[in-house]
Structure formats: structure tokens, C-alpha cells
């Protein structure tokens, strides 16, 4: 009896403690950071890692420099692109280093809510498109025009695509208009989502090994080009009008993807109070060649991201010295 009473008291005390700690007033969960951040007094930065290797290279180099040159602790969280915006606005992550253009989110968080601020360009230009392997393009040069794609539908057929040709798409998180394109260009193709980029790469490598033909959604910069040389298929020319209509009605896309200068974004509070780390991330700026160098080390040489970053940092002090505040 006495013991149960003590236990009850303790439980009550515990509950009270939690409530005292959380405060009795409002608790804005958009201002609550990760429980793993800043443990043990270390200054810490949380970076969002996207699933593709190029983005991993950015983060790896930034992390290496933040840790070794500026004395921060860096946490990385893998979040898909759109949720990453949400997480960024809630300060669950401090920065996104490579964004491929999300006008809706930009409108909401940067312009309306002002919880996110642009961090400047990354220096790399991204381009999305449809690609075929070089060995196939060499043998069949006319495949490079979208108008001839239907002719090759049978060639690109697989078990997963049924009777149609297979257009291999990657992670569901990527920016894609492929469904609309296939429909509007009246292509006899079935889109097969690999589910993740990794799965897509595995599949492409396997095709390449067997010298089989394939048609895939892909993008630059991408290290895989070094291993599997590919040629882009020309889609109807990109126009601003097409993009504007597409923004209104995603089902109406009927032109190629634009070429996007990749952007960095920071949490608004972090940008103000983040000190050296925020200043450093704002200045972070490199080229497609730099990024590919690191990506290649990670993806095909089997190096860990940190080792690859170290190697690049040691080789290119002239580039990163400029980023330090």
C-alpha cells in the first residue's frame, strides 16, 4: 500500500515535471528542433541529405569542412525533397544544399511564411531528361528524336511494362512530368517506377552489363555517366509558356524539362543566428566538375562519403578556402 502510494506520487511528479518542462503556455511545434541536436554543448548543424549521390557530395564536403575547419557537429537526415522543405521551415533541418526547383514550396515558405530564406546558388546546373545508353544510340541514331520512340517501343519492352515499351523512372520523390509527357506525346510506353534511385541505378547497370537497350528518366550532373555513357533523347523544346501551363495543370506538360540552376535554402532563424555555419553554407559554391569528382569517388570507387570529401578537400584548398567566413 505504502509502496503503491509512493509510486503514484512519483508518477504524478514525473508528469508534472514534463509539463513544467514543456511550459504551460503555447508550444509551437514549428520551432522545435531535433532531440539529437546540440547534445553535450557542441554547436551542431543538421543538414538534409537527399537520396541522390550529387546531393550527398555537397553534404559530405560541407560536413567535413564544418567539422574540421569550423568545429561544428553535423547531423544529417535523409528526407525527400518536398518534406525537406517542411522540415526546413520547422527547423528540424538547418539547410538544404541542392534544390531542383519547387515553386509551390518557395511561394509558401519563402514568400508567405518567411520561415525559409534562399541561400544562393550552388553553382551547379541541373538538367532532367530521357536518356538511352550510348551503345544503343550509336547503333540506332534515330532513337534520339522523340518522334521515333514509338518505333522502338517493342525494343524497350520488359516484363514489368507489359506490351508497351518501358520508360524507367526513379524515386517517386523526384520532379517528374513523365506521365503527362507519355500521354500528351501519345507514346506507346509504360512508366515503371523503380521506387528509389538506387534501384534505378542497379537496373541501369544491369542493362548496361548485358548491353540491353533501355530508356530512362535521368539527370545531370550524375556520376553514372562515367560508368554508363548515355545520350539524351530530344523532347519537344522547352518553352516558358509550356512551363506556365504545366504549373497550372500538371497533366498538360508536353515539352522538355528546363535547365535549372540548383539552389540552396536555409532556415530563416538559422540564417540569422547560425553564426559561422550559416555564413559558410551561404558561401558554399562549386562546379559540376567538383561535384562529380566527389560523387564518383563515393559511388563507384566505394569510398565513404567522409573519405571522399577529405580527398577532395585536400586536393582543392583553393576552392573551399573562399567559403570560410
Amino acid at each position: 500500500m505504502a509502496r503503491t502510494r509512493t509510486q503514484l506520487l512519483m508518477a504524478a511528479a514525473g508528469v508534472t515535471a514534463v509539463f513544467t518542462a514543456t511550459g504551460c503556455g503555447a508550444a509551437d511545434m514549428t520551432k522545435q528542433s531535433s532531440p539529437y541536436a546540440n547534445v553535450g554543448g557542441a554547436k551542431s548543424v543538421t543538414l538534409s541529405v537527399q537520396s541522390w549521390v550529387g546531393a550527398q557530395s555537397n553534404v559530405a564536403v560541407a560536413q567535413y569542412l564544418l567539422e574540421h575547419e569550423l568545429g561544428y557537429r553535423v547531423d544529417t537526415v535523409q528526407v525527400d525533397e518536398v518534406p525537406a522543405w517542411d522540415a526546413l521551415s520547422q527547423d528540424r533541418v538547418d539547410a538544404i544544399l541542392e534544390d531542383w526547383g519547387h515553386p509551390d514550396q518557395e511561394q509558401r515558405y519563402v514568400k508567405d511564411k518567411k520561415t525559409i530564406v534562399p541561400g544562393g546558388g550552388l553553382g551547379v546546373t541541373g538538367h532532367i531528361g530521357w536518356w538511352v545508353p550510348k551503345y544503343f544510340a550509336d547503333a540506332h541514331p534515330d532513337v534520339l528524336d522523340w518522334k521515333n520512340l514509338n518505333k522502338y517501343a517493342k525494343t524497350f519492352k520488359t516484363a514489368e511494362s507489359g506490351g508497351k515499351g518501358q520508360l524507367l523512372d526513379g524515386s517517386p520523390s523526384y520532379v517528374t512530368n513523365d506521365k503527362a509527357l507519355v500521354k500528351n506525346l501519345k507514346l506507346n510506353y509504360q512508366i515503371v517506377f523503380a521506387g528509389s534511385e538506387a534501384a534505378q541505378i542497379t537496373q541501369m547497370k544491369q542493362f548496361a552489363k548485358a548491353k540491353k537497350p533501355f530508356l530512362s528518366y535521368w539527370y545531370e550532373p550524375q556520376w553514372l555517366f562515367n560508368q554508363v555513357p548515355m545520350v539524351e533523347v530530344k523532347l519537344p523544346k522547352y518553352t516558358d509558356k509550356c512551363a506556365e501551363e504545366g504549373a497550372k495543370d500538371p497533366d498538360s506538360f508536353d515539352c522538355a524539362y528546363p535547365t535549372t540552376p540548383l539552389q540552396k535554402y536555409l532556415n530563416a532563424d538559422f540564417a540569422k543566428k547560425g553564426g559561422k555555419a550559416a555564413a559558410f553554407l551561404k558561401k558554399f559554391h562549386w562546379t559540376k566538375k567538383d561535384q562529380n569528382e566527389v560523387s564518383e569517388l563515393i559511388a563507384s570507387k566505394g569510398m565513404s562519403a567522409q573519405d571522399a570529401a577529405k580527398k577532395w578537400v585536400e586536393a582543392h584548398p583553393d576552392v573551399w578556402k573562399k567559403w570560410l567566413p
Partner: protein
Amino acid sequence: MSATTTRPSTDPATEPAAGGTAPDETRPSPLSAVVRSRAARKLAVLVVIAAVLVPLAHAKWASGSWPGALTVDVSEPLGKASDWIIDNRDSHWIFLYFFGHISNAVIICVRVVYVVLLTLGWAGVTAASTLLAWRVAGVRVAVTTLVSFAVCGLLGMWVPTMQTLALMAVAVTASVVIGGLLGLAGGLSERAFRALRPILDTMQVLPAFAYLLPVVLIFGIGVPGAVLATVIYAAPPMARLTALGLRGADAGVLEAVASLGATWRQRLLSARLPLARKELLLGVNQTIMMALSMAVIASVIGGGGLGDRVYQALSSVDVGKALAAGLPIVLLAVVMDRTTASAGERLGEPPAEDGHRLLRGWPAWAGVGVITVVVALIGRLAGSQTWPTGWAIPIEEPVNQFKDWMVDHLYTGVPVVGGTAEWASDYVKWILDPLREGLQGLPWYAVLLIVATLAWLIGTWATALTATAAMAAIGVLGVWEPSMDTLSQVLAAVFVTLVLGFAIGIAAARSTRLERLLRPVLDVCQTMPQFVYLIPVVALFGVGRAPAAAAAIVYALPAVIRITTQGLRNVDPAALESARSLGATQGQQLRQVQLPLARPALLLAVNQGVVLVLAVVIIGGLVGSGALGYDVVFGLAQGDLATGLVAGAAIVCLGLMLDRVTQPTSRRDRKGA
């Protein structure tokens, strides 16, 4: 007076008839006849219903797929709701004063545990866990614990392991408390139990993936959402077992306690709860297992820790890295499972009489505390709080080489059996595609009718109604086509699972040696989180529906084998002996005695197989299985909650339907522990 005299004479006349219609499970021989006649009657009713409704439906909405006129477009309101939430998350009172506090409390709790774990350092944590395991579960489990934590460190996964441990500790505590309270209500109040039971039954069959979206919608990406999704997933078994334990308490003991004049509270604390302690501990065990398997899935919504590492590795097809992150999860699961399980076994035994006095009671616990502190201090003085980096053993490289070798040699062109790539494409071409086309080609009302028939034949009209309504809901939500796709994948994988599972199960039931060989393998397999299975299958089977099916089969197989073996083993030995005495051969014994008598167990195996396969087929969306799983992944990845929620709801309906169609009379708990 005439009424009194006629009554007894009518009674005997009605009673046999009533006895005939009631389902009678005790007598097998008249049972089949009764079932047949009942089945015939049910079929007749269904035929009549179909004869009226099908022409109507056909005339009005003749199409293979669900008619567009009967769908409700929910994406618009859902999209608006999601926008409203995002816009008001930092201003509306419900977020500021309710969800905000929950989220904050979760963050603080996780942080406190995490800081404690980091402060203890690797030495302290290892020592504390090992001593704890030794105290509650004995030396063997303690050694397992020690080795497991050492391996976590050696794999270079110390920090993520601690993050997962912190998240787990909070999620499991919350699940146990919430589930325990719900179970308490259900155990003490008949009405609460009746209200709770269908909910718990349903939650038990839902794939973990379906829980993520609603949570993300409110809490956003991050630890609070991950913890809450885990709690929603892991609390039901605790609630269920608590309620069952309290209700199953020996009535005689409770009466004796009441006869001594115990108050309600004394009765609860000194009798009911202690009497249910085995179930309570089993509940804790199941909760931990569910939470661990969810901890990985929760990484999709920013749970961090080991799950995040697995997720990262999975997205770069780095099998080595994924294994390095997956192994600690499995080890944590094994350690926690063994600790709670053997603590449960030890409960019934009296305290050991032997051994030094200092090894018993509170002095031992104090000793555990002191040793932990000392070791932690030594660890801190000797080096860093986290595992020394120099001690890590990189396994990524060799594992990846091994994987490459496997892929090179197994993927294609293996003589006679063919490579895994050929298997995958054959499976897709000859099983999945025809099945999918068949299901999608079938008129929608035919599908509903088949579901109704199956559910009614195996259960009551209520089950049939639930199953049909669930199926219709899928159509109304407008995701008929992808649901049929998912259904075809589930059915095909279940088929393979059952063929393999029954074959191995029968073999294991007949050979003790094989069973002994299988047991540890099954034990480990059953404690593995679903996610871990996805890694190797991508390497072997490429991308698409085949790897998802392979993962599903491997995941569901242990449960099916185990239930089959146990079912066959538990067949009344007297029946078997009498068959043997009549000179039945081994085959005859199996066919005529063992299998018919083990029917309930086999049905249960089918049910479990279906539920487990569905869970993994959904996760298969991450490796290209498409359909509903992909929609959920897409919804999460694009923040398109309309798509994701609709797909999640469809998964719920599909799970409900599949469960009802295969539900045996009695149901046991998910992992059969």
C-alpha cells in the same frame, strides 16, 4: 394451464433443429455435412442476391474496373486539409496547445534519454545493459547482450544505435503506458472491451506503412512524428494482451480475494495485475518487437538513428552499409526479445534459494548501479563517450564484394535452375501478370461477389459484410486498379509462401532434427524488422514486383512454418496412435489424421501469411513494386497527402478484407511468440 403443458412438448422439437444450425466445432464427422448444407444455403442466398444485383449493376455500370460514377474524389478536400494544416501549424490553438505540447514532450523525453545514454558512454551503456540482462534473464542473455553491443560499436554504428535506443525507449514506454491503460479499461469493463476489441483486431492486421501518413500530416517530418507513429503501431498488442490477461485471470482466486474483504484497488493491485503478469510481460515483449520494426520504417518520416542509415544505404543500393546499419537493429531486437522473454519465463519460478545473499534483492540492484557508474567513469577517463573510431571494423567493403560476387554468379545464366533474374522475370510473366490481368479484367461486381462468398463461407454474415464493404470502399476511393495490382502481388506471394511454408512445416513436424535445426533460424527471422529484407532482394532480383514478393515470402515464411509445425505436432496423439494401430502409412496418417485435425492451425497460418505478406508488399513500394505501396511512398515523398492518404486507406481496406476472408475461428497474436 394449457400453455404450460404444451411448452415442454414443443421444446424437444425445436431443440435439435437449433442444434443443427448452430456451428458445432466439437464433432468433426457430422460437422462436414452440416457445413456443406450451411454452405449450400449461404450460396443459394448469394446466388439470389447476385441474380438480382448483377444484371442491374451490369446494365448501369458495365466495366471491368470500378465505375467512375461510383467513386468519390477525396483528393480535393484532403489537399485543402493538408494545406490548412501546414498554414496553421504555427498559429492555430489546437497545434499550439495540444499537438505542440505532445511534440515537445516527445522531443524532451527523447533528448533526456539520449543525453543519458551519451553521458554513460559506450562503456557505461554496455555495462548497464549487460548487468540488467543478467539480473532479469540470466547469464546467457547477458553474454548475448555484451556481444551485441560490442558488435554495434565495432560496426561503427554507436551513435545511431544510441539514437534509435533513445527513440525506442520513449516510444516503448509510451506504448506500454497507453496500451496498458487501454488494456486495463478493456480488462475491467465489459463495455470498454467490446468497444476496444474490433479496433485492436483491425489495427493488428494493418501494415505499418499505413500509419505514417496521418501522423506526418499533423506533426510533420521528424522525431515526434516517428515516435507517435511507432506508439500507434506498438500500443495495440500491449492493450490486447493486458485486456486478455486481466480477463483471463483465475476467477477462483479473484473470488477468494474478494471473500477476504479486499477493496477494488487491493484486488487490482495485489491479485488481478500480478495474475496477468505473464501476459503483461508478453505484451511488453511484443510492443518492443513492433516498435523496433517500426523504428526502421519511421525513418521514412525522419526518425533518424539506425533506420535512417538503413534508408540511406537502401537508396544507394549499398548492401554493405545497409547491413552494417541493419545488423544493430537485429541485435537490439534479439537482445530485447530474449531479455523480456526469459524474464517472463522466470516469473513463475520462486526466487533462487541458493547463491550469495548479495546476489539477490536490492543489494544486487544497487551493485548493478555502482558497477555501471564505475565502468562509465573508467570509459570516460580512458577515451571518448562514443565508440572509439579506431575500433571499428568496416564490413561494407567485403560485404559489397560478396554481394557483387553473388550477383555475378546468381543473377543470370546459372545452369539448369536459371539465375535470379530469370526467376524474377518468369515469376512476373507467368504468375503476377496473368493474375493481375485477371483481377483487373474481372468485373468489379464479380470481385465483390467472390469476396462476399469467401468471407461468408468461412465466417458469419457480419464478416462477409465487413469484407465486402471494405472492398467497395476501395472502389469508392477510386483506387480500384492499383488495389487489384497490390492484391495480385499479395495473392501470388501468399501462394508461394504457403506452398513452401506447408512443405517445410510438415517436414519439420516429422523430423525433430530438422525442427531443432530450424528453430534458431526462425527465431532470428521473426525478430527481424521488415525493412531489412528489402536490401538483399534488390541485389538479387533487381527492381519491380519480384523483389517485393521475394522479401514478402521470406518475411512471412517463418510464421507459417512455425504455426504449421506446431499445429501438426499438437494433433491429439491418441488419434494418431489409433490410426497407426489400424496400419495407416505415414502418408495416410498425414493426409487423413494430422492435416484434418490441424485445420485450425493451418487456417491460422494462412491468415498470418496473408497479413505479413501484405505488410511487406506495401513496403515493396520502395523497391519498385508499384501500386498502393508506391502511392504511399509517393505521397510521403512529394508531400502529396491526398494520394498517400487515399492509398493508405485502401491498404487498410485491403488488409481488413484479406483478414476477414481468411480469418479462422480463433486468432492468436501476430508473431506467435
